Each structure stands twice: as C-alpha cells, then as structure tokens.
C-alpha cells in the first residue's frame, strides 16, 4: 500500500468547505403493535458536526453499528435527516425533495459496502454503468456504450466485459464496477462505505490504490468509511472516530495516529498492529471489554463510559462536548490523553486500569 505522496496532496485544491454536516441526526422510529405506535427510536446518528474540504479524504471510523452507513446515506440524501443540516457546495440539501435533489446527485455519489448486493444480478455491466447516463440524461460524445467502456478501462477492467453479468466477476472486480458507476457522473464528492472490507486482504490494497489514483486524476473528495483505523491510515487527510452515533475525536491524520486524545481512539489504535518494532514495546494493548451498548438506549453522559478505563462519576452524568484541544484536533472527553506535552504517559494510564 503506497503512502499518500506529499506532492499529490499538495497539488489538490485543499481548503474550501465542500460538504458540511451540522448537528446531523437520524433516529429510526421503532413501532409496535397493531396501531404501529412509536415505542422508541434507534439513535443511529445523534449529532454529527464535521466539514469535508475540497480535495481531501475524510475517514469515518468506528465499530460495527456505530452509524457509519447511516451517516453515508444521510450525506447522499438516501434518507431524510431527523435533525441538523447538510450543506453541499454551499447549498443546503437537508430537506430537499427527491425531485430537487435529482440534479444535485451528479455531485455526490456513493460506493456501497457490499459488492455482491450493490449490483443488480439481472443487469449487464453495460446496463449498470450506463444507468447514471440514462437516469441523469447525460449526453455522451460517442454514445453511452463507448463511455461505459472508457470507464471500464479506467477502473482496470476490460471493455469486453460490457455484456457480462455481475455474478461472473470476483468481489474486487465487482467493487471496481461499482466505482466505475459512481465515476460516470464525474461527482465532486464520493462517499465510500467500507469499499474494501468485504474483499480479500490481498485485493484491498489494489482497490484502495485505484481509488487514490482516481482521486488524483479527477480531483475527487472522499468520505471514506471504515471500521478499522489501519485500513485508512495511508489514504486519509483527516480522520473522525465515531462511537454510538457521535464523533468522539476528529483530527488530521498525523495528529490522530500519533497523539490520540480520546480514550476510545487510543484503544482502537492499540488494537492496530504497529509495523515499527521500536515503538511496539512502550505501547500496551488495550482490550475493549464488553459489548457496544444499544443505540436504542445509549448510556448517559459520555457514551463511552461503560467501556472506558478512565471513566469517573462526572462521565456518567455530563456529556463531554466535542472541543478543539489543539489546532485542528477535536475530542469529546473530560479526561483526554496527550493534551499537553507534559510527562503524562498515556500507556501508564492505560496500563494501570486495563
């Protein structure tokens, strides 16, 4: 896996806010009984605030069920937010009707989590990748077929695959087909929902590299979803760590991987194998005990307190706000790690309670 080259990042027009989420919420109502009365809600996403800058890759990382896919579906307006706002390129799309949203869909596209489920088994590759042109009534210079074949080549498939069906391809190839479909409309932002987690480890790097190449070629902005910090380490510009529908920590890549402030991030990082052997000794493995609590009835105060080794009484009663603790580094914790360059040793704190 190649590390993102400094020149590649510098060439892109970093800066402007392209996609902004403010206090974004999605609660799925739970209905019971004959009258379908609402008896509760799954608080899948519960107040996310972040910005995605033009040309950058923001990664959303968290355990299964923390609301990553829901966030992606909110950003692409496949579902309607319960609260908060979404701004795409300066335009508020929070509650746009599907008709008003249709032309804007060219700007924001999504790569789906399951390469087996995201392609209609009854359609040919040509029909699948050609669908964006037909649905958005995009004129192509040499016809849709040529455009589809160009896209196939772009993602490393053969143009001869045009008449084939999804079941004739491997997982990695299917994900390439999905990527080609999102590229058809030349979007500004691509929300990639765990694009490689369903793939063999040996293929993951190929697909990630392809996505990086495409980003450089087309000035794409990525919201990259992953459940594991190691997968996105090399492709992210910034990383947001999610837990139970909330952002726990958001920071520049280097800052987050080298000076994690939130205990949850520290725990996730300690589970990541460290390639650098000299550092392996002074970092202890923190095992997260217990299950992720239900998003139907999340813990009071800090949502992480049921599993946090630093938790104190304050954590159970008062929710810590997401605040900037150093330049470009926000965390939501009463007792963050790595805040000052003093002698506080994070592993010492971790070791004493683990």
């Amino acid at each position, binding site marked *: 896996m190649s590390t993102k080259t400094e020149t590649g990042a510098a060439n892109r027009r970093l800066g402007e806010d392209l996609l902004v989420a403010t206090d974004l919420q999605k609660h799925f109502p739970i209905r019971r009984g004959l009258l379908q009365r609402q008896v509760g809600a799954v608080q899948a996403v519960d107040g996310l605030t972040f910005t995605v800058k033009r040309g950058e890759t923001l990664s959303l990382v968290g355990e299964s069920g923390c609301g990553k896919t829901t966030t992606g579906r909110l950003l692409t307006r496949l579902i309607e937010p319960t609260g908060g706002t979404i701004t795409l390129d300066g335009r508020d799309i929070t509650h746009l009707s599907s008709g008003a949203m249709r032309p804007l869909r060219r700007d924001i596209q999504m790569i789906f989590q399951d390469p087996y489920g995201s392609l*209609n088994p009854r359609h040919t590759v040509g029909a699948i990748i050609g669908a964006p042109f037909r649905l958005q009534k995009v004129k192509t210079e040499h016809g849709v077929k040529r455009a589809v074949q160009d896209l196939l080549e772009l993602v490393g498939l053969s143009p001869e695959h045009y008449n084939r069906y999804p*079941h004739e391809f491997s997982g990695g190839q299917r994900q390439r087909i999905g990527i080609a479909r999102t590229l058809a409309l030349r979007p500004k932002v691509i929300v990639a929902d765990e694009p490689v987690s369903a793939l063999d480890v040996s293929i993951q790097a190929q697909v990630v590299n392809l996505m990086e190449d495409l980003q450089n070629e087309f000035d794409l902005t990525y919201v990259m979803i992953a459940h594991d910090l190691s997968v996105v380490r090399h492709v992210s510009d910034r990383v947001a760590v999610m837990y139970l529908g909330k952002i726990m920590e958001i920071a520049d890549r280097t800052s987050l991987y080298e000076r994690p402030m939130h205990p949850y991030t520290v725990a996730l990082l300690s589970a990541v194998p460290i390639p650098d052997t000299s550092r392996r000794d002074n970092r202890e493995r923190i095992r997260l005990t217990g299950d992720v609590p239900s998003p139907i009835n999340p813990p009071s105060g800090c949502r992480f307190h049921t599993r946090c080794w630093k938790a104190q009484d304050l954590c159970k009663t008062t929710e810590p706000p997401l605040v900037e603790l150093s330049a470009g580094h926000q965390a939501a914790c009463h007792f963050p790690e790595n805040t000052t360059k003093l002698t506080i040793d994070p592993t010492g704190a971790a070791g004493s309670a683990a």
Partner: protein
Amino acid sequence: MTAPPEVTGSAADADPEAALQGMPKKAIQGRSLGQIAWLRLKRDKVAIAGAIVIALLILVAIAALLLDRVFDVVHPNEFHQDLIDTQNGTLAPLGTFGGMSGAHPLGIEPVNGRDILARIFAGSWISLLIATLATVLSVIIGTTMGIIAGFFGGWVDTLISRLMDVFLAFPLLVFAMALVGVLPDTAFGLSPEMVRIGLLIFIIGFFNWPYIGRIVRGQTLSLREREFVDAARSLGARGPYILFRELLPNLVAPILVYATLLIPTNILFESALSFLGVGINAPTATWGGMLSDASRFYTMPHFMLWPGLAIFVTVLAFNLFGDGLRDALDPRAR
C-alpha cells in the same frame, strides 16, 4: 464470505461458473442468469422428464380439443352397450380387465360402456385449461398485490396482508358449491359448458392469489432493502424505474416457479370440484367427474384407476418440473 482471489490482467476472466464445468469458458457474450438456469435445467433429468410429460399432455389436450373424436377412433361420449354385461345385472364390462381390447385399450365404463381412454384424453384439455388459466389469474392478481404491498409498505402493506388472510380463511369449497348452485346455466350467449369453465377458472384463480401474493410480497420486501436499489436511488431513479427495472426482473424467476407449482394444485382442486359434482356437467368428460362416477362401482377398480392415474401423473410431472425449475433458478445454488 471471502472473495475469490482476484486475477488481474486484461484477459483473465472471473470464474464463478463452477456450476458449468465442461462448458466452453471463453465467451465474449456473458451468460445471463436465465441462460445459466437453462443450462442447469437441461441437465436435470427428472425435471426434463416432467417437462416431456407436460408437453405430451398439452399435445394430447390440444388434439382432443380440436378433433372431438379422439384420434378419429372413438368418441368420448359414445355408448357401447353391446360390450356391457346385461345378463347378470352387474352392468360390468364384458371381458377381462374392464373390457380392455384393441379398440378400447384402457377398457370401458360400466353401465354405458364409454371408452375410458377417449374420456381421459377428452378430460385432459379441461383440466389443463382450467388449471392454467386459473393460475394466470392468480399470478396477475397476486403479483400486482404482492408488489404493491412490498414496495409501498406501511398501511398499504398492512391492508393487503389482512386481505390475503381473509382470502386464505375463506371456505372456498363451500362457497364454490353454493355459487354453482345459484348461478344460471347460460350467460353472455355462451354454452353452459363454457360458462361453467369460466366460473371454475374464476373461483379457483380468484381465491388462490394470496399464495403468489405472499411470496411476491416477501421477495419485494427483501429486494427493496438490497443495495442496488439504493444505488439506483442515489443516481436519481424514480419509483417506477426501481419497480420495473430493478425489482421486477428479479421477481420473474420466483413467480415462474410458484406458478408452475400452483398448476398441479389447481388441477387437484378442479378434480375435487368435479368429483363433488360442482365442476363441469355431465356428459362432458373430466378426470374428477370420472373418479366420481367410478366411486359408485368400487368393485371395478380399473374404472377408478385410470382417471386417478391421469391426475397423479399430471400433478407429479408439474411438481417435478417446478422443483427442477426452482433449483435451476435458485441464486443460492449459483
């Protein structure tokens, strides 16, 4: 599920076609799931046997319908009283095995001596016609209702699901007997026979749609959650596009399978109605009617054997073919 190792390079093809070993692998044109299903079906000997029996039955039924006299030899309603034993008062056919002979290969009926083979042939078109058209009616109503329920969900789904429950709880047999009793024999300028056939198609077809409806609803519900539907929506697809382009092509296979499996059920139902005397009126031959006649002559089992066998073989053939079709189309066995 782990993905198979990816082969890079332009000429390398994915090979998830393990089911098709021995088939030429390199083909520029991709094979659709339908083509693969056909290749698999072709190798399922039991299903093919079922299909052949069905094809023969259809030929016989068409011939019997068009020729009136079966193969121009004997008429199904022609009496052969000269072959009946009137001396002993049993009115049984003369000769052995129910009067089997070259002229009457399956023997003749007691009392009036009608040719059994001719009546079986003549009964085939009524059975197949009623069962097939009733199935078509069920499929049309069931698919429409099932898709609407599954696609729109919410109170529409609740309403249609309850409606299906009501239909399934309906005392159909009793209703059919009552309805046939009160309706006039002729209507719309049709012959009594045609009116009765139409009525049977309506009763059987109209009340069986929930079986198809439930399956289609369930399939639609699960398809609706698949990511390719989200993918279409994220490209700006509207409801009708999703319904007709994304969902319906995936529903064709299950509808086809359950339609094939509904036909034998309908054949049995039609036979039961004829057996109970609310089917097609005498003297028109039906398999159920023949069984009903035979039940009065239990000392002459051959009379009951042949129509029973006809029903049995037909139902079995449809079921075997339907099962084979389901296996061939099952995406899990891909």
